[in-house]
């Protein structure tokens, strides 16, 4: 598997994402400058966390016009896997590659802590190594992680099974109490209808080594690797 990590001006979680692929996962990975447009050599493109363009205007609003994003759009239309983490998720939303938008956390605080996520589906390239209902412990670090979409969009994404992760507690309870930022329906991770683009606010790259306290994030990268290997064998 070959992964690429996009670097926008202001991205600051690109190196952690690079490390998670290179060391714990042990696969090939390269940085992709935001002005690059050739993604043909990659199986997975990661849009990392950070503050692209300083979050000016709206978070992810300026990054959506970086030259690399039309390449990412074409790449995803051809079936390439895209993983947007935190700011990466915000960019995917601004681009319209995923539905909805992010607004400031309900309690107006930057939240930096471990959260629990309930796995809603395991028949995806991102979660095939997990069980439905499995609980992952992965950190979040964001100010604008409050997922919003109107009622019709929420109904559609729930019906289509696009929600992949929900904020919960250590027992898997999904409720207002277990929602750290006010996201509608406790949505923490969302997939597109074609099933090849995942956006998630938590940082799996920060939960990829025992030294960091959790390897639950590594399970996502392992799922992606497994999917890529299966796809290669069937070609």
């Amino acid at each position, binding site marked *: 598997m070959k992964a690429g990590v996009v670097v926008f001006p202001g991205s600051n979680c690109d190196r952690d994402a690079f490390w998670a692929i290179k060391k714990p996962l042990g696969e090939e990975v390269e940085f992709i400058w935001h002005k690059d447009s050739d993604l043909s050599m990659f199986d997975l493109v990661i849009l990392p966390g950070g503050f692209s363009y300083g979050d000016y*205007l*709206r978070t992810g*609003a300026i990054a959506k016009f970086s030259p690399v994003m039309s390449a990412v759009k074409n790449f995803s239309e051809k079936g390439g896997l895209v993983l947007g983490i935190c700011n990466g998720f915000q960019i995917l939303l*601004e681009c319209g590659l995923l539905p*909805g*938008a992010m*607004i*400031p*956390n*309900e*309690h*107006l605080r930057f939240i930096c802590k471990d959260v629990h996520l309930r796995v809603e589906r395991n028949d995806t390239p991102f979660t095939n190594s997990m069980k439905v209902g499995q609980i992952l412990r992965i950190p979040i670090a964001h100010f604008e992680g*409050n997922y*919003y*979409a*109107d009622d019709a969009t929420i109904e559609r994404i729930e019906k289509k099974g696009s929600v992949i992760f929900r904020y919960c507690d250590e027992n898997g309870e999904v409720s207002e109490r277990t929602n750290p930022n*006010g996201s509608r329906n406790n949505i923490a991770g969302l997939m597109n209808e074609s099933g090849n683009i995942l956006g998630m606010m938590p940082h799996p790259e920060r939960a990829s080594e025992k030294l960091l306290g959790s390897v639950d994030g590594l399970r996502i990268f392992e799922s992606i690797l497994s999917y890529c290997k299966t796809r290669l064998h069937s070609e």
Partner: protein
Amino acid sequence: MKYRAKVIVKKIENVADPEGKAIFEALFRLGYENVSSVRSGKLFFVDLESGSVDEARKEVEVIARDFLSNPIIERFDFELEVLG
């Protein structure tokens, strides 16, 4: 001709506005019990050269709709002023 567009971007009504809420609560604590609501927004001054008012208006409309605002959570309005 030079024009200045004053673009106001505000969140749509049913989208949570934590900043507006925080400002409203602070105003209440400052003694302004007669203030019933605060909604926050953004203001942009966009200066541009254009052939006519209509052309400038159309261009600002596109800029405001496709870039300065996110139609999922915001609406915009603008005024145009001739600078000279």
